[in-house]
């Protein structure tokens, strides 16, 4: 190919490609299975978010006056606008879900241990950035749900000790959620967070390539014997493992497309600061934290309950970031890490339970032919007689 030759003489891409190919065909450990594709799935969803996000930007207007109308126009007039928006909305849910699953995979296989502590920490930062994307994005449609979920969500800043009020005003850009809130959330969502995510993701992936996927051997054995020797006999990363990843990513994309087509994202009535709709609650990934606040005592040792709730949500984050240094045992195989597995299940159970309680709170549910009214804490108030028409 004359063009390829022409380019090669100027760029030397052939030798670069040969080196990349040699590096990429290094084998992966033999225990690697489809779960190890979850990182790639997260990356795939991220790519979809970037692509659809740019398309949404073509039409979206970031002002309290125009935001809702611009999305209405996108949904009713722009060809396939509904599809792009639905991909972005569902993609956000699936991205967060995939991050949590990827994290769980790494946790179970001990992938965070020596020498991959930094990979885990960068990953934790990616999770926090991902949640930041989800939070800042949720206000942008400027419909009732967006407005009031953000009102509830930002109110958490008020519970910060000492600087609560100032923090709330900083987050909202004023006393109430309004034009200024939309402006800053938009800037964070489309400029600050992407710029922050990119280098962190780059470093994460670079470390993953440099250190290779962890084996199931103990950390000290891996260090002593060497990663490459332990991987001998495993299938090459490229093309064999990449094909497995492509397979899983393909299924994940299919799921995203089907969800976007079969359950397209809707748009509620325009935000109205004077009318609180019933049943406002944060998205599912924030529900556990939201619900936790409700169980705080009114005050403890002179600290207010809200502040306690705020403080209570800091240790889990620190724990997440510091995990590789808190769990220093070299064992990786889950069968020899009973304590860690129990802790993982406990966190999963607690988070799940809080999420379910948060989902049920202030809801009337018809089940088993009866009506259950759940109070603010998610407990059934009264199991009143036979089912009546839902209100």
């Amino acid at each position, binding site marked *: 190919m004359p063009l390829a030759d022409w380019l090669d003489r100027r760029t030397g891409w052939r030798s670069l490609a040969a080196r990349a190919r040699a590096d990429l065909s290094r084998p992966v450990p033999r225990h690697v299975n489809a779960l190890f594709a979850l990182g790639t799935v997260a990356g795939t969803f991220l790519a979809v978010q970037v692509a659809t996000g740019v398309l949404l930007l073509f039409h979206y207007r970031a002002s309290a006056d125009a935001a809702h109308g611009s999305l*209405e126009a996108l*949904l*009713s007039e722009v060809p396939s606008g*509904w599809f792009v928006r*639905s991909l972005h909305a569902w993609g956000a849910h699936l991205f967060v879900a995939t991050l949590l699953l990827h994290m769980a995979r790494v946790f179970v296989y001990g992938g965070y241990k020596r020498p991959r502590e930094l990979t885990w920490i960068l990953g934790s930062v990616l999770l926090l950035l991902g949640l930041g994307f989800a939070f800042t994005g949720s206000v942008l449609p400027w419909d009732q749900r967006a407005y009031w979920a953000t009102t509830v969500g930002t109110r958490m800043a008020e519970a910060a000790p000492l600087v609560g009020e100032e923090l709330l005003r900083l987050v909202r850009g004023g006393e109430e959620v309004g034009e200024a809130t939309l402006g800053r959330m938009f800037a964070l969502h489309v400029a600050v967070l992407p710029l922050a995510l990119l280098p962190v993701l780059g470093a994460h992936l670079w470390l993953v390539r440099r250190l290779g996927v962890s084996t199931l051997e103990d950390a000290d054995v891996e260090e002593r014997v060497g990663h490459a020797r332990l991987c*001998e*006999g495993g*299938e090459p990363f490229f*093309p*064999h493992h990449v*094909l*497995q990843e*492509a*397979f899983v990513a*393909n*299924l994940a*994309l*299919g799921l995203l*497309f*089907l969800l976007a*087509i*079969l*359950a*397209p*994202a*809707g*748009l509620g*009535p325009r935000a109205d600061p004077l009318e609180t709709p019933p049943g406002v609650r944060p998205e599912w990934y924030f529900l556990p934290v939201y619900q936790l606040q409700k169980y705080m005592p009114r005050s403890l040792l002179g600290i207010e309950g809200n502040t306690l709730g705020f403080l209570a949500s800091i240790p889990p984050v620190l724990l997440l970031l510091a995990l590789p240094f808190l769990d220093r045992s070299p064992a990786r195989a889950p069968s020899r890490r009973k304590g860690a597995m129990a802790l993982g299940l406990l966190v999963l159970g607690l988070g799940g339970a809080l999420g379910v309680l948060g989902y049920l709170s202030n809801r009337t549910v018809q089940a088993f032919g009866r009506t259950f009214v759940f109070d603010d804490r998610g407990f059934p108030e009264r199991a009143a007689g036979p089912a009546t028409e839902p209100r």
Partner: protein
Amino acid sequence: MRGGPTWGGGLLLAALAGGFPGRGAQDPGSAPASVPVERCLECHAGAARDVASGAHAALENRCTGCHGGNPSSFDERRAHTGKFRAVPLSACAACHEAEAEAFAGGPHGVAFETKAIRGCVECHSFHAVPRPDHALLRSSCRICHETNAPEIVESGRQTADDLDRLESALAAAARALDEAERRARIVRREREGLEADRLGLLALLPKQHAMDLEPFRSDVAALRARAESTGARAAALLEETGRRRRWAWLVGALVAANALAILWRRRTLLAARPHP
């Protein structure tokens, strides 16, 4: 429509009413509002029950609000003095001004003047005033016109039918819009149009009370055409949404085919690999 007496033109209503106070206003001729009306109930408990069962149950100025009179007296004669009105047509007009005005200006106004009919109550009944609905046009006309003008009875019946059809067109359009919204379609403008049509019907009611039924019916028909086109638009949106869902099959098939192709390629690669 609500508020003090503002009707113009030397209408006979105005003459009769003699400045009737609107809702909540105080008639200087009757007792202050603080005086309980319980004394009226000594004799008129049935009427009070009827009011409570009708469309006016929520009105605040009870007996004296419409009838005037002196509720602080137990004496029958004294209780019924002080601008007392047995059949308070003017009280209806205080809120339903446009309808009353149209009524007085139409053919029924003449009958009212000659005392052949008693006014609103003739069709809408007394204390237990029902929520007005189209059925009235079927039942009330024949009270007077069954024998002397059967064509009027017929015209009332047809008008009622027209209104029924309009109501069901409005309801069908609203249902279709709900359904479209459930499928994430944007229907705000259609909803606003439908709401305007509903209000449009209310605005037509004076015309109906003037018994000008032909123009009224053509206006009702125009509203119905609008409601029906809104319904058709919602149906088209739903239809298009259904077509979108058929895409899902195509996407599913593509995903499955691609997945199979990838698996196949991986299998052939793995099979060609020398075993360690």
